[in-house]
């Protein structure tokens, strides 16, 4: 029976065929597939190994445990909250379990404009099929859609707009609604309860609380990675060294470029090309109790604006997250929060045109440089107007926009305010739960960080396998795409085994 031992008492010096750094959607799948293929695999995970027994559904305790910087990470000017996970399973442990296949048009763009081999939808189909099966991807049953989700669809339909119900990766969901604080019931099929245990089942070894720091190299080959093990009970720290034939950095699009840059690995494209799916939200206030905190938070979407790069998705937030993102304060905020149980909420998620960059600051931490460009600001206005109309059509007495001007929409005539509102840093709530692109695939080493299969340009055996690989913003929730890329990278390594092993 696989076990995970974090009671470290001494330094470790390990040898394996493959060392995977990070256990999120990309790294866990890569590790599992290679273990299944018979290779010895060591997984290093910076975060802790936390299971449902620890997931107590309290924001104040789970955010520091499961999110980078306790959920307080932002872009350098504070304009965008950047949410990503830091525990075994990575961001899949704390995501909303929404599943989209990658849009065929985006994959075609990657093939034609970026010269990436084997990336068209038909190429990726076997990987997508396997990932969907292991993650148990299925439609959310209509009866599991709570009123918060229904209000978005009802309003949209009254306006003649199209929408639908998401697919998700949950099994026998209890609809508790605490997905992003770690599923307390193991119903969300995150990497924590699927590909990571699958990797262990096929013989991989997992070291949580193990932060990779430096690489040993001989010419263009990495020979070992060294890091620090922390015993979570005692706080004692030890050295870990893993020698391997192949290495994958899979820490996500924020952490991966930091590790590479700290080690002088990769070309000038590492850290650049950051996309974030910038997201803002609107709250519909209704006369009746919506109780949107009950049930699955993310269930429905409106797709009419998708060709313009805008997705509208129902969502809700626990009290701390809601209160801190209303962009209201004082008595007005308190009076608004007093109506928490009559709120419905949805997001405007952008297929971003803009680009940013990740650098390393003096603390050795990521400095994220990104703000929403003019084209994407126009999408925010379009999306927020559509969302306000939808909620008014659904019967909301008013629609609150999370902006410091305190914008409230009560009728069609109020919508002009959205055109006029300043979209500047720290004037409105903008966040990102999807970070992509900072070690992008591509045929041209001048314009990309890795080759078509995620191997760092100029290196023989160092791969990237996570959201960093995406050369453009995806436009939909990316976990299935990233997981499929993990499967695809594994297939490439097995196919080219004589070259790598």
């Amino acid at each position, binding site marked *: 029976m696989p076990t995970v031992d974090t009671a470290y008492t001494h330094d470790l010096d390990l040898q394996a065929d493959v060392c995977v750094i990070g256990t999120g959607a990309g790294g866990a799948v890569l590790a599992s597939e290679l273990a299944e293929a018979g290779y010895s695999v060591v997984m290093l995970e910076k975060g802790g190994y936390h299971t*449902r027994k620890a997931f107590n559904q309290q924001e104040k305790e789970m955010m*520091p445990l499961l999110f980078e910087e306790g959920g307080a990470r*932002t872009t350098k000017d504070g304009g965008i909250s950047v949410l990503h996970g830091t525990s075994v399973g990575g961001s899949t442990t704390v995501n909303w379990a929404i599943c989209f296949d990658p849009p065929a048009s985006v994959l075609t763009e990657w093939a034609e404009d970026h010269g990436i081999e084997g990336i068209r939808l038909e190429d990726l189909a076997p990987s997508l099929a*396997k990932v969907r099966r*292991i993650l148990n991807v299925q439609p959310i049953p209509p009866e599991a859609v709570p009123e918060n989700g229904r209000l978005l669809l009802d309003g949209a339909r009254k306006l003649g707009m199209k929408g639908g119900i998401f697919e998700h990766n949950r099994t026998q969901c209890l609809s508790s609604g605490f997905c992003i604080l770690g599923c307390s019931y193991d119903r969300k099929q995150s990497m924590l309860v699927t590909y990571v245990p699958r990797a262990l089942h096929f013989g991989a070894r997992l070291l949580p609380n193990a932060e990779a720091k430096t690489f040993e190299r001989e010419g263009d080959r990495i020979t070992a990675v060294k890091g620090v093990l922390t015993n979570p009970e005692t706080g004692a720290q030890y050295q870990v060294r893993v020698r391997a034939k192949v290495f994958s950095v899979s820490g996500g699009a924020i952490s991966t470029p930091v590790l590479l840059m700290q080690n002088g690995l990769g070309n000038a494209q590492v850290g650049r090309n950051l996309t974030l799916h910038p997201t803002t939200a609107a709250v519909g206030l209704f006369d009746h109790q919506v109780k949107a905190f009950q049930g699955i938070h993310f269930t429905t979407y409106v797709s009419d604006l998708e060709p313009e790069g805008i997705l509208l998705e129902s969502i809700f937030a626990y*009290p701390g997250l809601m209160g801190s993102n209303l962009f209201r304060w004082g008595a007005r905020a308190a009076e608004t929060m007093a109506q928490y149980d009559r709120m419905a909420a949805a997001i405007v998620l952008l297929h971003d045109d803009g680009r940013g960059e990740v650098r390393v600051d003096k603390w050795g931490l990521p400095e994220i440089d990104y703000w929403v460009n003019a084209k994407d600001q126009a999408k925010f206005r379009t999306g927020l107007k559509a969302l306000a109309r939808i909620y008014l059509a659904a019967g909301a007495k008013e629609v609150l926009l999370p902006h*410091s001007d305190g914008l409230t929409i009560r009728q069609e005539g109020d919508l002009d305010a959205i055109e006029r509102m300043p979209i500047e840093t720290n004037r409105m709530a903008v966040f990102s739960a999807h970070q992509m692109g900072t070690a992008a695939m591509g045929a041209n080493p001048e314009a990309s960080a890795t080759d078509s299969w995620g191997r760092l340009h100029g290196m023989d055996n160092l791969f990237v396998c996570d959201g960093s690989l995406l050369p453009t913003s995806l436009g939909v929730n990316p976990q299935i795409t990233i997981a499929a890329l993990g499967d695809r990278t594994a297939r490439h390594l097995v196919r080219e085994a004589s070259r790598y092993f």
Partner: protein
Amino acid sequence: MSVPLSRRRFLLQALGLGAGWLAGSVTLAGCAPTRYPERALSFLTPKEWAALDAASAHLIPRLPGKLGGPDLPVATAADELFALANPRLQADLKQLLNSLEDMTWVNLRFRPFTQLDATAQESYLRSWERSALGLQRQGFVALSKIAAMLFYSDPRAWEQIGYPGPWVGRFDFGQGLANQGDLAANPNPHVFERVPE
């Protein structure tokens, strides 16, 4: 909860460009009452604690019959939380609170934020919120998010917003579940199967 500030730039801009924000708009008569932490602090200094405590009274005010920011209190929760944060977050929070307390420019002189009356404190915070300077807005948003996150994630605040709280502790769904935190057991039977191509 976001607090990254460029420390030096914040100081310079707050000093050099922020002068006159409040000139003539506030008075110093009747300082807000000074409060003290109810227990030993882990991370914040008493001065920093007092600045955050005073700000929280405006960010989450006490409405009739309801709790407000100082009731929980938010500043003590921030002290606990940031004691465990990374050095960057810690440095940024200290920078922010010291800037708030030391550099409040009122009637052509600097006055401690905590020694202003309530009206002046609120006006000062509003000037940050509406500032043309991104760094001042950033400081305000950081304060506002810290206060709101820590206040509303506290169970004592839930009754007044109609939030029943987590299922854990209210409902027991533990019985009969396969996985008690053991990676080998999982309700999804496909996890350990080899998948035919």
